């Protein structure tokens, strides 16, 4: 279901499944083009899962969603729009999640210590507060997550060994002669 490119490969991430801490209704399903809400989105999922708390949702995102923008100052989750049903209302909202410091206001010392290859193994966190790209709220829970919309295609590194971690690119297993 995922296109080629950069995917999160930490061990706690699996493909779309029906398992979850909250009550599972049905597994995520990739919509075909005729069903998509937006012609211009990269990929859309029909989900239908009940989530009791904000923590459950964060866990679900980490487990089910796969696309991250790998930048040099952090990883940004690409699932930005979700459709939810909460308290008798159905609406679209934004949700932004990331790995690393966000906003990425690092000082020079912090930047020098930042290791993106290590950071990729961390779990992502939703940026909940004071943020225009997260309009879902903690007190929307419990809710039913109905749709997930990935705005943007995965990265496709031109020189994978230079960009990705040596484990991801296969460089770790290569012999490079002098």
């Amino acid at each position, binding site marked *: 279901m995922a296109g080629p490119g950069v995917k999160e490969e930490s061990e706690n991430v699996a493909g779309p499944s029906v398992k979850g801490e909250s009550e599972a209704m049905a597994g995520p399903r990739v919509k075909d083009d005729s069903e998509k809400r937006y012609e211009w989105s990269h990929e859309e999922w029909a989900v239908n899962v009940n989530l009791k708390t904000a923590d459950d949702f964060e866990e679900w995102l980490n487990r089910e969603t796969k696309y991250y923008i790998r930048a040099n100052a952090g990883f940004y989750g690409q699932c930005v729009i979700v459709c939810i049903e909460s308290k008798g209302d159905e609406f679209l909202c934004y949700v932004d999640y990331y790995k690393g410091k966000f906003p990425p206001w*690092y000082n020079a010392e912090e930047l020098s210590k930042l290791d993106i290859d290590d950071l990729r193994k961390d779990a992502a966190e939703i940026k909940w507060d004071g943020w225009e790209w997260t309009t879902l709220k903690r007190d929307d829970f419990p809710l039913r997550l109905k749709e997930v919309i990935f705005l*943007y295609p995965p990265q496709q590194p*031109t020189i994978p060994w230079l960009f990705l971690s040596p484990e991801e690119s296969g460089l770790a297993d290569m012999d490079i002669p*002098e």
Partner: protein
Amino acid sequence: MNKLELMPTEETVKWAKHNSWYVADLLARRGTEGENPLIPRAEYEMLSFQTTFLQHPWLYLWLGEKVGMEGIRSICSSGHREFGIKTITPCNIQWGCGIALFGRLFLIDSGLIGPNDYIDNLRIIYSFWRTVFEGYMREGKPAAMDVGYALQVLDQDVVEDLNTQVEPLDDPELRATVGQFNSLIQLMGFLDHYDCRLGLGDTGPYEVDDRLILVRDCFVNEKSFPWTFVVGDLPFSYSMVLTFDKKKMMRDRKSGRMKMFSIYNTGTLFCDPPDYEDQALMEVAVYMRDEDYPNGTSTRIPLSDLPEHIAKLEAAVERMYRYLAMKPWFDKILEGNWVYVAASLPYIRAHDLEAEAAEMGFWDMDLRSMEYLLKGYTKAGEVQRNAMAGLGAPPPQMPGFRGRGTKFGKYEVLA
């Protein structure tokens, strides 16, 4: 009829988010760099961002009528075959539109407009930007981030030919001379463009056999700027072709000794460790060009001739510093504004329309820009920090979405 085809308003959400990601990442890296106290950068950025946001949408529509969608896509075709010209450098290609997008961010973060104001400007800018980028990088992607920060623009046969012209840097004295020249052309490119990256840019890394290659262009004398008389004895641009030891880089990436070697959309190389460029550098070729595309030609400079160019550059840098030191502060805000307006020059130069655009008001200022500058002037530093960290790329409010409150309640979420 030729025209710029506009994306649906809702699609601007996709591009605003994309914009937010890579701007945040760029600023995280750039934030550790110093500032030139002679240049009122935050203030001139505030003015020029607004100027271009308010004025350049008409330019992009006009260009669409002149050359059509294919014409817009072909803006960078010269940059696939030539270097030392502005249509190759990502900063110039990206930020002609990107600067205008910042204008929206500044206006919103200053509380002067809401996220749904000037929405057509936003659609036009993103539509033009997306179309230009379809014809820029080899992969047709809109940001270096999308391809792992390797920004390949020149055709492969051009790069392979350049690789045959480089000279080795085994002699420590020659290596030091090249290092001095490299530093000076970057400094002069910065100064000529009011301390911003429109004056220089790298593309690459390109791969040729056991080398990675960067092409570095520094625009040391932009002849459209009135201060060209200060640096008038310099060529339009100097360029360097730099080759790097690919196997060493692979070994260093594998061992963790080198963590990053990334070209951003500003054409800026960021390395970890920061001095890695010099550690892996093997050979160099140097060129100069007398005028920007579609005029001018590139001439190779033998490395043995670099000392005379270094002397000219040192003298020009000194004159430019003196010019900046004597210039009144507010005048420099205006001059910086024109540098950023000129970020859209490559779009019109590519089709030889610079004179016609100037006649139609390319260099004139919409007075709303000045009005907004005066209203937001005292907030420039604070707004810049927020907006440029990706905090100021709010999506427009759309039907079906949870609203974000009133026109000015940009971070507020209503139940």
